[in-house]
């Protein structure tokens, strides 16, 4: 799960390094309930306006420009100053709420046209100060294809818009013929395939935040685009800037200061925006920062995960300071079908059956961080229940015992021709995992268990990013087993989880995320069919079928559908957002003293 197509993927990068964001489900409270993992998903009644909240973070946003950002922590901050066509209220599950849009996206029967009507009265912040129109959304998406902006998901989700393929080739941000603006408050996407559902889903990502062409174009012509340093707000907050629009409230790797956007009209927005000011302090050590949050005032976590000791303390004695939110993804250990002995399905099943997945989960904190993963689609996703819910698909006995079963493991080793019930090969297999943090521990536990099963390993531990860029994402590296892989949603649609990982079309020579290099015609067909299905129920059923087929091919050792723990100071009424699995700054407030 690294750099392709998952906004939340970087989260895993950080988690693996022991740095990422965290926490627990401080159930109930003000609650609208429903938020994944028991997080509070609505502000308490009588929440007060005003105050300053400080978000402590270890590192910086990936891009301050909403059109380039592709990272969970960036989204957490940027949804406070960027309003896409659609966005997720804290309690939204599945379908996002209209934001700049005035109602749901209309998808034509054939799935080839998506029409969105927009609200009037939404204005850009200073220095642009004019009303937002559909042309601003059109420009925003077109610039995503500009090489100077290089949005990470524009091609993946808007690639079927007519003219987008050419735009991607030229990469100069020129107009895309398939994005049409019949009037100032309507935008239409004309598609070459019946992928309207995915395009509509992707309109909930920050790329659809309006961008004023007359102001931004000169910045977009620079390489890289300098628009981020002059970004214009549409949300309730803006980054402090001077009269020319140049940001004064952003120092990379140091801090971001958000103040109220004077042009924001609450009547056009569902966000309550209680806080007067939000300061993001970067460079904070996760251990120190977590303690500061727990013991301090007006603080919440940004990109880091509280260390296990603090998590345990908060989960037991300070539950109201903890929010656990379903991440919308999972962690699994990937086999490579192209490298023996994992080209043999029975060996793969034997390994899965023999793995103590509970032990693996303990490396990240145990049961509190989420249920054992049993198939590919996580809880809360369309198709999850149909694919088996909390259970493995029928017949998958190798997934039945999360503590590992030597008997079942031996059965499959024998089926693979190994009469001892253990692996009998003599060649060393290449296993590449993380070298530090909780990821490193998980890799070590996995390696130890593989050795217990009889495997001889060439076990390499490298930094998390190197594990992906030099090894697991590169088929020619011939890594047999990658213990630190995982994947999180871009938005709540099964396609964003299954297609990049298991469709044979997505086997790439570099930056590959189909780690097993699975190219099963039945699975490919199901995925392609599901992608083009507009009806949501039908779509969910097809993806559930694909999930089951995939899981029966034993492509990975699934071990946790994890929850993101987030923490807040005692005087902060923190609200978690189910979409982003982080604290929602637009709904969070300072408690009355």
């Amino acid at each position: 799960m690294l750099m392709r197509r998952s906004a939340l993927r970087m989260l895993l990068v950080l988690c693996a390094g022991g740095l990422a964001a965290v926490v627990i489900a401080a159930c109930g409270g003000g609650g609208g309930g429903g938020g994944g993992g028991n997080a509070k998903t609505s502000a308490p009644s009588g929440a007060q306006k005003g105050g300053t909240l400080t978000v402590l973070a270890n590192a910086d946003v990936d891009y301050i420009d909403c059109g380039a950002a592709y990272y969970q922590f960036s989204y957490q901050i940027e949804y406070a100053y960027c309003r896409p066509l659609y966005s997720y209220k804290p309690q939204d599950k599945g379908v996002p709420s209209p934001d700049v849009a005035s109602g749901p996206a209309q998808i034509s029967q054939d799935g080839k046209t998506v029409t969105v009507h927009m609200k009037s009265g939404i204005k850009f912040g200073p220095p642009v100060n004019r009303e937002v129109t559909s042309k601003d959304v059109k420009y925003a998406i077109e610039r995503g294809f500009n090489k100077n902006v290089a949005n990470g998901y524009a091609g993946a989700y808007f690639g079927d818009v007519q003219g987008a393929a050419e735009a991607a080739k030229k990469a100069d941000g020129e107009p895309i013929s398939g994005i049409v603006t019949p009037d100032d408050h309507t935008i239409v996407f004309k598609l070459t395939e019946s992928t309207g559902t995915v395009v509509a889903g992707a309109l909930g990502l920050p790329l659809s935040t309006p961008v004023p062409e007359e102001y931004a174009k000169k910045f977009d012509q620079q390489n890289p685009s300098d628009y981020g340093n002059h970004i214009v707000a549409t949300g309730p907050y803006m980054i402090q800037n001077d009269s020319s629009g140049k940001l004064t409230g952003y120092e990379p790797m140091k801090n971001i200061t958000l103040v109220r956007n004077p042009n924001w009209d609450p009547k056009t927005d569902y966000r309550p925006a209680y806080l007067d000011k939000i300061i993001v302090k970067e460079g904070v050590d996760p251990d120190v920062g977590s303690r500061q949050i727990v013991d301090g005032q007006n603080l919440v976590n940004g990109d880091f995960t509280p260390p296990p000791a603090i998590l345990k303390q908060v989960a037991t004695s300070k539950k109201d300071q903890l929010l656990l939110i379903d991440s919308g993804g999972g962690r699994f250990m990937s086999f490579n079908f192209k490298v023996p002995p994992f080209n043999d399905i029975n060996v793969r099943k034997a390994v899965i059956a023999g793995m103590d997945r509970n032990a693996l989960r303990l490396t990240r904190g145990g049961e509190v961080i989420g249920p054992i993963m049993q198939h590919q689609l996580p809880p809360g996703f369309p198709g999850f229940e149909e694919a088996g819910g909390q259970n493995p698909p029928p017949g998958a006995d190798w997934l039945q015992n999360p503590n590992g079963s030597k008997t079942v493991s031996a059965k499959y080793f024998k089926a693979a021709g190994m009469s001892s019930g253990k692996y009998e090969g003599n060649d060393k297999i290449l296993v590449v995992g993380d070298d530090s943090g909780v990821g490193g521990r998980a890799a070590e536990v996995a390696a130890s268990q593989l050795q217990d099963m009889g495997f001889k390993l060439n076990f390499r531990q490298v930094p998390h990013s190197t594990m992906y860029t030099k090894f697991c994402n590169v088929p020619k590296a011939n890594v047999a087993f990658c213990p630190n892989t995982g994947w999180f949603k871009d938005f709540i649609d099964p396609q964003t989880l299954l297609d990049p990982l298991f469709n044979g079309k997505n086997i790439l020579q570099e930056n590959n995320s189909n780690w097993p290099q699975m190219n099963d015609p039945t699975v490919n067909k199901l995925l392609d069919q599901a992608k083009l299905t507009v009806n949501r129920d039908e779509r969910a059923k097809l993806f559930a079928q694909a999930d089951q087929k995939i899981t029966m091919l034993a492509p990975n050792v699934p071990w946790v559908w994890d929850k993101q723990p987030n923490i807040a100071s005692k005087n902060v009424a923190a609200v978690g957002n189910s979409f982003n699995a982080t604290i929602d700054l637009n709904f969070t407030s300072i408690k009355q003293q």
Partner: protein
Amino acid sequence: MGRYIVRRLLWVVVLVFAVVTITFLIFSVLPSGADPARLRAGRSPNPRLVEEIRHRYKLDQPVTAQYGLYISNLVTKLDFGHSFQNDTDVLDEIFKRLPATISLALGACVVWLFVGISVGIISAVRRRSILDRTAMGLSLVAISAPVFWLGLVALYLFADDIGKIPILPGAGSYTPLTDDPIKWFTGLILPWLVLAAAFAAIYARLVRGNLIETMSEDYIRTARAKGLSERKVILRHGLRSAITPVVSALGLDLGLLLAGNAILTETVFNIPGIGRMSYNAIVNSDLPTIEGVVLFGALFIVVLNLIVDIAYAFIDPRVRYS
């Protein structure tokens, strides 16, 4: 003396050239996990874009051509490279962060010199006393304690937000000197103490050893025979001689710290200095920044050593002729 300085300067040029070359080779030729073009291309790069960037930044040229360009930019434009991660010039970023690192390093240096020399003298003079044994024992502890551990312990004990005895500003309290001198001072007390601890211990042992040796020299006996007070004998005659290795060590240590080697202290206390910048660069595989920081650090160390060498030559004329 002039010839000596010229000779040393020529060595500096040779050394810097060697450092530049080795740095370039390490980061540009040896295999690493990061591809600058890919970093620059963003999170979901298509191969075409990566190639275009590689071409634009001349990363597709032969290593020798890249090396020539690198040297030429370095010499003619003082160009330390460009961070593909943050899209900033590395040297600009280094200069932005230098004041914080200087504040940390110089302040800690004052602390460790004061503590180290004082303790060293007392231990040498009161050799084998309880005071000496206690001081040397504690110095071993200070040397052995990892700075990140010491930093965390100091924060959990004394930081005003999370400490058990909340008396000093904790992590994230660094304020630039020009913004508020008082906050600057108070915000750096804990980092100074933590960073200085190990150095103070090493210097104390160094001073003690040298002073004990010096105090047994004939000229010290002569000084005493002349009727000088013990205080004058120690401070004017003994310490003056015993301190020269400390000067030498100081040049190197201070150079290392100013070059960003206070990574752990800056990280634990969230001080936005060069060490913190190095940490971020390492985490993000931002090779141009790592390369720039290494080069800058090497230059700093070489220059400080030059100063130390020249100071040595002034202190001890034998050095010039050796």
